[in-house]
Every structure is written in C-alpha cells, then in structure tokens.
C-alpha cells in the first residue's frame, strides 16, 4: 500500500540493517562535528590527528590542532553521541512503559534527582568526580524509589508509576531550590546554575570512562527487552494475556531508563526534548515495533545531539549557546511537524 510506505519507509527493514545505516550516518555526523569549530582545522589534519592517536609526532598536525581535535572536539562528539542515544532510548522505553506518547526521561523524576545530587555535592564542596557520581547515584536511586513507592499489591500499575514519578520529580526539584537558596558562596551558586543549565562545553575524557561503556551496556540491555516493550505498549490486559509478567517487566524497564537518564544527565546536565522527540521521529521512519524502534531511537538521538552540539558551539561564534536551548528550538518545531504529518501515534493510550 502506497500510503503505508510513505508513513514508515523502513517498516520492514531488519534491525541489523538499521544498526548499519544508523551507524554510518552517526559516523558521518561525528566526523562533521569534528571538523567544525572556532579553530579552523582542515579535514585532512583532523584525520591525521585522529590517526595519530596519542602520539604527538605527526609532523603536519600542530599542537593546537592536536589539542582541539583530540581533547576538545572528540570528547564532545563522543559524549553527544552517548547522551543522545541514551536519552533517545530512555524516552522510547518510557513511552511504551507508560503507554503515553508524551512520556520522556524527565517524567520519572530521574533528572530532578540528578540535579539535586549535583547541587548538594557542589554545596558540600566536593570534587567534580564526586559531583558526577552523586548525581548519577541519586538519579539511579530515584528509579528504584519510584518502583518501590508505586508498587501496590504485588502489581505495578501504569498510573501509579506516572504519579509517583511526577511526585518524586517535584520533590527533588523543590529540594534543589532549597539547596540553591542555602548556598553561602557566590561561586557555588553560579556553579549550581551552570550545572542545571546543562551542556557539553567543559567535557573532558574522564567522565567518558564511565559514560561510554555504561551507555553501551544499557543500550544493549534495552535491546533485550524489545519484545517486552512491544507487549507493554499493547496495554495491561493484552500484555498479560500474552504471557508478560507485567510487574517485573515494568520494574526492569523503569530502572533501565533511570540508569540511562542518570548517565546522560550526570555528564551533560538536563537536555530537554531529546527523549521526547526522538522516538516519535524514529517511529515515522521504522514503525512501531521495538526491535527496530530502539536502535533507530538510539542512532537518531545520537545524530540529533551531535548536530545540536555542533550548532551550539559554532552558530554564534565566539559565543556558545546552551545545548538545551538548541535542542528545544530545533525539537519543538520538529515535534509539531511530526505530529501534524503523521496522525498515527502507534502507542496505545
């Protein structure tokens, strides 16, 4: 049928081919990001710097280019890929879990908890590493907290998850405000505000030692739940009659989403709209089944964020736009377009 082909052109593609295609486009976007920036580095020099790896011996690459490509742009691009993929997949899973097309990683309170962890750590004057760690720990912990609080009678109903997640988010948001008010040092306050604003402008390789393998592990773990997510998206009655242990599946999916969100937010702060828009966009390309939707969301999220980050740091030189602003400005019109052009949500309300 012609109309269906127009709706989701890669509806019958195999997951492997989606991974391949997505990987190639992501690679292209990454290379593009590596070549763009305030310091002009020719693509040939970018390539030599990458190929040279750690050695500074390559004659054609100046020390400045070496620093720029390997230590400033490359960690940014890699971080954007990981954060984008993580948020995209987390959003996708939550939209299936909550049967709500407006669900996003920030609905379950994980990012608010991450914010609270970070500002508390800043208040206590802890190091950058501990700040990352505490925001990650609190975001993950909030996932478990939501599961524990939403559980009732051995079951984990959807509505309960939504309400609990929302409340937990509000709680941590309020606590964060309190901490911000209680700071006695100007510098701490500015640091807190900077953190909440989000962005990859000061990313180094150190946080990536955890972010990269962590995100990869979580993404691969999410892939294992493709079938469960399909069943969850059908709704409670149908999922159960087809043999799904809804409670366990929901708990696992929620914790996994919280983990992915925690990883992303602890490194990049709160980046809006990626988790909300990317799954919808992915659905327009590959349809609804999660075996294809999860990898598509991951790659689309990664590509989206790399492009957004590149725009953020090159559009208004020498200024740098906050990454959350770019994703919102791009994400909102995109989202509206996706909704108008395709009426089929694909997620059982």
């Amino acid at each position, binding site marked *: 049928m012609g109309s269906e082909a127009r709706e989701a052109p890669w509806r019958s593609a195999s997951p492997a081919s989606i991974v391949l295609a997505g990987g190639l486009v992501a690679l292209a976007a990454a290379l593009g990001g590596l070549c763009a920036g305030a310091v002009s580095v020719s693509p040939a020099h970018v390539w030599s710097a990458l190929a040279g790896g750690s050695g500074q011996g390559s004659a054609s690459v100046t020390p400045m280019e070496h620093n720029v490509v390997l230590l400033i742009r490359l960690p940014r691009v890699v971080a954007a890929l990981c954060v984008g993929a993580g948020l995209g997949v987390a959003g996708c899973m939550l939209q299936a879990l909550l049967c709500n097309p407006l669900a996003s990683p920030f609905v379950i309170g994980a990012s608010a908890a991450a914010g609270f962890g970070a500002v508390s750590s800043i208040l206590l004057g802890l190091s950058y590493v501990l700040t990352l760690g505490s925001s990650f720990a609190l975001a993950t912990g909030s996932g478990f907290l939501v599961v524990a609080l939403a559980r009732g009678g051995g079951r984990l109903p959807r509505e309960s998850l939504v309400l609990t997640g929302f409340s937990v988010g509000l709680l941590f948001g309020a606590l964060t405000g309190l901490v911000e008010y209680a700071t006695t040092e100007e510098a701490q306050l500015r640091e807190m505000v900077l953190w909440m604003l989000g962005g990859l402008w000061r990313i180094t390789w150190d946080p990536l030692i955890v972010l990269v393998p962590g995100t990869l592990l979580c993404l691969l773990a999410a892939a294992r739940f493709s079938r469960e997510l399909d069943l969850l*998206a059908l709704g409670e009655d149908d999922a159960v009659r*087809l*043999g799904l242990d809804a409670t366990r599946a929901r708990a696992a999916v929620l914790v996994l989403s919280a983990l992915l969100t925690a990883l992303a937010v602890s490194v990049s702060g709160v980046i809006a709209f990626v988790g909300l828009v990317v799954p919808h966009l992915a659905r327009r390309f590959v349809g609804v089944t999660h075996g294809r939707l999860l990898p598509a969301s991951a790659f689309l999220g990664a590509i989206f964020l790399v492009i957004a980050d590149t725009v953020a740091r090159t559009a208004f030189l020498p200024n740098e736009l906050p990454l959350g602003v770019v994703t919102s400005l791009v994400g909102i019109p995109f989202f509206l377009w996706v909704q108008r052009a395709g009426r089929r949500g694909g997620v059982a309300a």
Partner: protein
Amino acid sequence: MRVTLRLGERTVLQDADLQLRAGGFLALIGPNGAGKSSLLRCMSGALRPQAGSVFLGTDDLHRQPRRWVAAHVGVVPQQSDASFACSVEEYVGMGRYGRQRLFGTSGRSDRAAVGRALETTGTTAFAHRPIDRLSGGEFRKVLLAQALAQEPDVLLLDEPLQQLDLRHQLELMDVLKDFLRSGERAIVAVFHDLCMAARHADELLLLHGGRVVAAGPPETVLTEAHLREVFGVQASIRRSADTGRLDILPLAAVGRPARQHITDAHTTSPSEDGP
C-alpha cells in the same frame, strides 16, 4: 485436557463448577451480567477467584508463571485496542512470546506457527497491513490468529462472532472445529446467540446471576422453562432439519403481549422481525 473449576467469588460468580473434557466445545450462555465473561477471565488467569481454583490437567493455573499460562491457554478477547500500529504478522507473532526463551529471537518454529495461524484464519492476504487499518471483522480474525499462534491447549473466546458477517461467522466456526480435530484440545466460548451456541457447542453452561443454572448438552440446557426463567423469554425450540441441531426462536418477552403478528405462541411461521 480436563479443567476443573470451582469458584466462589461472592459478587460475580458463586460456586461455578465445571469440567471440560478433551476435544470438547463448551459454550457459556446467559443474560447480560450473568458472569460469563468473568468466568472466562478466571479461566484465562486474568481474574483470581476468592475461593477455589482452576486446574489445567493437574496444574493449578493461578500458580503458574504467566508465560506458562500463555503457552497453554489462548484467549480471544471481546475487544482489544488496535492503536499499536504494527503489522498483522508482527501482531500475531506477539502470541509466540509465551513460548520463547530468554534471549531468543523469532526462530523457525515461531515463523511456522505464525504462518499456520494466518493461513487457518484466512488473514495471510493482509499480513503486512498495519493493524489499525483493519476493519472490525478483519481484526477479530487477527485476534484469533494471535491466539492460535500461541499453540494453546485450551482456546477461550469472548463473543467470537461479534462484528463478523454471516460468511465469516461460518468460517470462524470451521476454524474452531479444525482446532478440535486432534481431540487433545478444548474450546470455551461465550455466546450471545443461542442458536449458534446450540448449533456448534457440545456442551452448554447456563449462567444466571453468577450461578450455574444448568450444564450439559444443548437438549438439557435449552428448555422452554430455562429460557422463560433465565432470559424472561417465551421461545419455540425445535430441531432443525438442516443442521440436526436445536433451533431457538424467541417469540415474546414474558409478561408482555406479543406485538408481532403471531397466531399463537407456538406457531412455526416466523414473525416479521425475526430473532
């Protein structure tokens, strides 16, 4: 396969006791609100009875993991939300979840089962169409295909003939007959249409207000007395020459004069408005 059912749900079902024999086709009939759907949902594991238990063979259904239940009991619900826009083939494939292992993807046996299910229900023609583009009747067939893909031992159907035109109703009943052919499986279906129930089922269970009023072959259950008591209807019950089964013709509501043109209560000429 023997199913022993003893339920003591106070509000909905009271001490409903039934046994299903292998190869049998049991129809649940009764007026609205009699508890038919609830009984069916107890049997599928969706509802837990307050007292009593459901056995499939020697296994207590409610103690088994959901996966096991899905591999043995297939349910065709009365309605299902079709907003998840996957293809028919994928939707039917979801029925295989109960039989798949932890890290398993769709294997050969899964694809074969899906193919057979699609073929039996005549839905192969639109196997690649998204399910939210199907008509009501087509979707009901897909639901049946999904249940069949589970390769269950017992098939439970809640008002399976709803929304199907006459031809498809007959086709569906043929599919159900095929399902029973091996003699190892059983079907329980809720029917609103007494004629269809009488025509196809071996045994009937008449429910009224949560209690089992009668159980057994159609002859014992479908009596004028029962129909008057339970349904509040005066009806004519004859054996049809064409099918060899009972044929029910409701004539008038009890306590109200017949509005139609009928010479006497037991006439054989059909009224204008029919059943």
